[in-house]
């Protein structure tokens, strides 16, 4: 029985690590993969998602609707950032890096001044479940499935909508897409909105599991970067594959060496993968 129990514990833990990495990374991956822009304020977008989800929840909305509000609020915020900041810096990777890093510092401080050092949390829904001597929060499993659902949604949008086709064309050859009439400016604006919504939804999903503080983003941006770096340029397959393989490594590492050991294992794995596969997992799955 003990073997089955251990296996079960492993799977649940892995699902929750996968969910956390995949959700942390998806918004960053979409914006980076399609626009070639690294949003250093990505962690703060997650924070905004978590805060606005909590606000909507305190207001009386059920959690799932509150998460929707969190996603939308972050999306609208992202749209403003894109119009005021990002669009002036297309094709200037370093400039956007510095600008979004500055934005991240400003956001953290503004939230600290406005709401103080911590914010009302959201209780963990669904309770716990018991299996033999092993018990876990049901919500962690939900998180894993939520990540799968969001990736499926992003896949469908990118592969089967007109927006998705234009985004993929612009990603492969921007000038050619423009010469065919694709308004890349609009495609990028929508992409930034889309990525921001996903980051906000991720923040909303994280809200019950974490303490809401102005600097909570810094924790998630590390996870996001690790996932996106290992994943490489292929937004859907690369990022989800990276979250899955990193989750697979983080699980035993954190069981044996504790939480810190798990994080160290993440970083070591990332460095090794970049040595072996400079293009990340995308390099294996994408052939031209």
């Amino acid at each position, binding site marked *: 029985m003990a073997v089955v129990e251990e296996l079960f514990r492993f799977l649940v833990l892995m699902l929750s690590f996968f969910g956390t990495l995949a959700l942390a990374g998806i918004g960053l991956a979409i914006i980076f993969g399609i626009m070639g822009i690294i949003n250093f304020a990505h962690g703060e977008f997650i924070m905004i998602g978590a805060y606005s989800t909590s606000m909507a929840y305190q207001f009386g909305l059920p959690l799932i609707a509150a998460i929707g509000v969190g996603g939308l609020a972050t999306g609208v915020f992202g749209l403003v950032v894109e119009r005021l900041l990002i669009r002036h810096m297309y094709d200037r990777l370093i400039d956007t890096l510095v600008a979004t890093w500055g934005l991240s510092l400003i956001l953290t401080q503004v939230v600290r001044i406005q709401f103080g050092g911590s914010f009302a949390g959201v209780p963990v829904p669904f309770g716990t479940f018991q299996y033999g001597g092993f018990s876990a929060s049901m919500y962690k499993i939900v998180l894993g499935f939520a990540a799968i659902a969001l990736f499926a949604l992003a896949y469908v949008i990118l592969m089967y909508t*007109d927006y998705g*086709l234009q985004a993929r064309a612009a990603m492969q050859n921007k000038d050619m897409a423009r010469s065919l*009439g694709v308004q890349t400016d609009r495609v990028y604006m929508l992409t930034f909105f889309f990525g921001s919504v996903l980051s906000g939804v991720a923040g909303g999903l994280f809200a019950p599991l974490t303490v809401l503080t102005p600097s909570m983003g810094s924790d998630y941006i590390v996870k996001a970067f690790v996932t996106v770096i290992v994943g490489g340029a292929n937004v859907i397959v690369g990022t989800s594959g990276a979250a899955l393989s990193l989750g697979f490594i983080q699980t035993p590492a954190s069981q044996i060496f504790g939480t810190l050991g798990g994080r160290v294992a993440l970083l070591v794995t990332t460095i090794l993968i970049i040595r072996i596969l400079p293009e990340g997992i995308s390099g294996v799955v994408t052939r031209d």
Partner: protein
Amino acid sequence: MSLLALEDVNAGYGRTPVLHDISMDIQEGEIVSLIGRNGAGKSTLMKTIIGLLSPTSGEISFRGEAVTDDPAERRARRGIGYVPQDKEIFPRLTVHENLKVGRLVNERSDEELFEEMYDYFPILDERRQQRAGTMSGGEQQMLAIARALVGAPDLLLLDEPSEGVQPTIVEEISDAVKEINDDIGTTIFFVEQHLEFTINTTERCYVIETGEIVNELPPDELRDSEVVQQHITV
């Protein structure tokens, strides 16, 4: 009425000027070509017409309207189709998706034209679901032409359509170009080093030298080796 007119257009990359006072004029329904040595500014001129490069001075008008300040995407929507050198098909999209990008943005296009492209280039029909990057040079060239045409342009710009294409396929492409001009009435302006291709398809030929239009010839004169020597041979 002239379809495309350039008046004293100057353009270049950054601070390096490439084109000097280019003036030219293309009538509706014509097939016009542009010849010149490597580095004479042929591709630069094409990029300036589609709008990937902005002129530093001068006027470009299309169907009598000034388009000088329009970005490429707006010129494409006005009815200019562009097939760049090196084809630049989207390698990781399927053949069908490549064509769809060409069609998406153009309201004048329709499903019928979409299917017609597969008639002009039957090989593309067989490859509909194949990733475009896995096809041969000639097939990619046909795809690039079809992708531009599916947007129903009034003017088609072709930058060296025979480059990197097997000789047997060159003929097929030059036939298709003539056929398209006959059937749909698309005006065609192309750059070509391949003389046979130029003589066979073209009605009028501009000669460009170090960024300036220096001559305008009837294509027959391209059979004269002295003329060729003077204008094209490196």
